[in-house]
């Protein structure tokens, strides 16, 4: 029974280091000998076969290409391919393009499939070119760094081999000005697809052409970058390896994996000096940001000031118990002054309203002279009113 995909992925994760070692061995020896497999992965050998990560070749083993590509991709360890391997896309892309042109008015179903396939082939071609450039950069940087300290003559031989066998042919594939190059074909295909994405009658196919057009545009950009790397960095390899420097050797090694090395120590600046005048307040401020304070609620200011509610019953009872009252307005003022010390105008008028109560019987004394009462906001003059008894 086939294993669960998650189980396989978990297995890859848990045993990645061993798998990486196996991959390195296959890369250098072309195969994983059974003795080596037993030494490195003896305890997981059965799963490696069960999950189809390895397959047997006589008594020995090798990675299934899917897993080999996966590990290669994850660790960016691309082995440069001979240009012939990449060149094959020239033929597949050209043929598909030719068939599309010839069958443009034919069966739409087969046309759709061909357009899809063409996109797939173009992507595969670009990925291979990209991987190859990365692989070539790595190999040529090894020559430049020359950690092995090989002789200059040997360096030139190695560099020449890379240039002749890999770099120059790859450059030819990417040379847009060369009529037989893949890049040139892609350029022509781009022009053709551009017209079809605007004018083709079938909407679905029009959309497919549209997608293919954008794919080609982005891949052409990518190819241009690769081509630039080849012309500026890979083709002049012979010139570049004439000089050698320990510093560059170090930097090339470092850039291969910057996280691997402890870089020069640089001081992390301190916040303040222990003898600074500000140290007390700065420290206090620094620590205060971590202290948890109780929540503070701010009430509306108006709510804090008295929303005084006039208790009519209370004051009416007081008035009635104080009867007879010789001077009603003075009584109001005194009542408030006793209770609140100050006489607020609003409260004063509320209290004055008692005079209109039905069971209160106010009497005007007839005295012409008005008397003054000072409130918090103003001074008011009132006539004298007496209240002797209940109405």
């Amino acid at each position, binding site marked *: 029974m086939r294993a669960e995909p998650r189980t396989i992925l978990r297995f890859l994760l848990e045993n990645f280091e061993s798998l990486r070692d196996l991959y390195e061995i296959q890369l250098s020896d072309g195969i994983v000998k059974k003795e080596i497999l037993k030494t490195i992965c003896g305890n997981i050998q059965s799963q490696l076969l069960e999950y189809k990560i390895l397959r047997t070749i006589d008594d020995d083993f090798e990675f299934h290409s899917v897993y080999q590509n996966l590990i290669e991709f994850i660790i960016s360890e691309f082995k440069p391919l001979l240009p012939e391997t990449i060149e094959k896309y020239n033929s597949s892309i050209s043929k598909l393009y030719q068939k599309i042109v010839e069958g443009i008015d034919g069966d739409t179903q087969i046309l759709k499939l061909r357009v899809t396939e063409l996109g797939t082939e173009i992507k595969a071609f670009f990925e291979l070119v990209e991987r190859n450039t990365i692989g070539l950069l790595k190999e040529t940087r090894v020559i430049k760094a020359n950690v092995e300290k090989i002789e200059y003559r040997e360096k030139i031989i190695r560099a020449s081999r890379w240039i002749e066998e890999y770099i120059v042919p790859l450059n030819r594939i990417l040379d847009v000005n060369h009529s037989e190059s893949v890049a040139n074909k892609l350029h022509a295909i781009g022009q053709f697809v551009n017209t079809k994405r605007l004018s083709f009658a079938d909407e679905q196919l029009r959309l497919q052409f549209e997608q293919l057009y954008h794919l080609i545009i982005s891949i052409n950009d990518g190819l241009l970058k690769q081509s630039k790397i080849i012309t500026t960095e890979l083709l002049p390899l012979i010139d570049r390896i004439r000089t050698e420097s320990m510093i560059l*050797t*170090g*930097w090339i090694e470092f850039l291969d994996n910057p996280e691997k090395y402890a870089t*020069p120590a640089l001081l992390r*600046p301190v916040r303040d000096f222990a003898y600074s005048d500000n140290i007390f307040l700065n420290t206090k401020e620094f620590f205060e940001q971590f202290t948890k304070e109780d929540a503070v609620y701010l009430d509306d200011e108006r709510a804090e000031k008295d929303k005084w509610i006039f208790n009519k019953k209370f004051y009416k009872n007081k008035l009635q118990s104080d009867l007879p009252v010789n001077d009603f307005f003075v009584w109001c003022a005194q009542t408030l002054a006793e209770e609140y010390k100050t006489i607020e105008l609003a409260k004063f008028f509320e209290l004055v309203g008692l005079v209109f109560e039905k069971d209160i019987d106010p009497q005007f004394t007839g005295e012409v002279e008005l008397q003054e009462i000072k409130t918090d906001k103003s001074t008011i003059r009132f006539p004298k009113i007496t209240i002797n008894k209940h109405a």
Partner: protein
Amino acid sequence: MLEYPANHQEIVEQFLNGRFILHDDKLFDEVKTNENFYISFFKRSFGYQFEVTADFAYVISDESNENLSRDISVFFAILCYELDKNGKNFLEELEYGYFEYSQIDDLFANSSYTDLIATNNKLKDSSARKNLFNEMNRRNIIAKESDDTFTITPAYKVFIDFAKELATNKIKGESTSN
């Protein structure tokens, strides 16, 4: 009472802010003359190591700013690599060259270390690199000459020595494994 060198407070402030004091700085002579004092002062006061060469002085601690150091190292590594690729003597350029920010932008845009640059927050684009340059300027690793240009101070030698040491160890390792 203990006698302190002249400008002691300023010197200590510079070092504790992670700065290199360079040979053309007025404080450098004071530092150089009192080398033993400062070795002992930083060791006893802060537990820091004090380093002085003919060109610069700085202090280092166990609590290092690793990320910054790594970013600066990657910057110098790519700069040297790209200058060499363009047929220049990178050591001469570091020592005597004037760099324009736009020149650095071009070098990084055309570098084949695309992934490394794109995934480094301090180097990924022109504005990110500006921040790194500001930090390097604060620490006297580069000196801003104008809004567009800067020079590299002798403090670069700390990073070049690191690269040399790495190469030496790698070559040694390679020869012992052969």
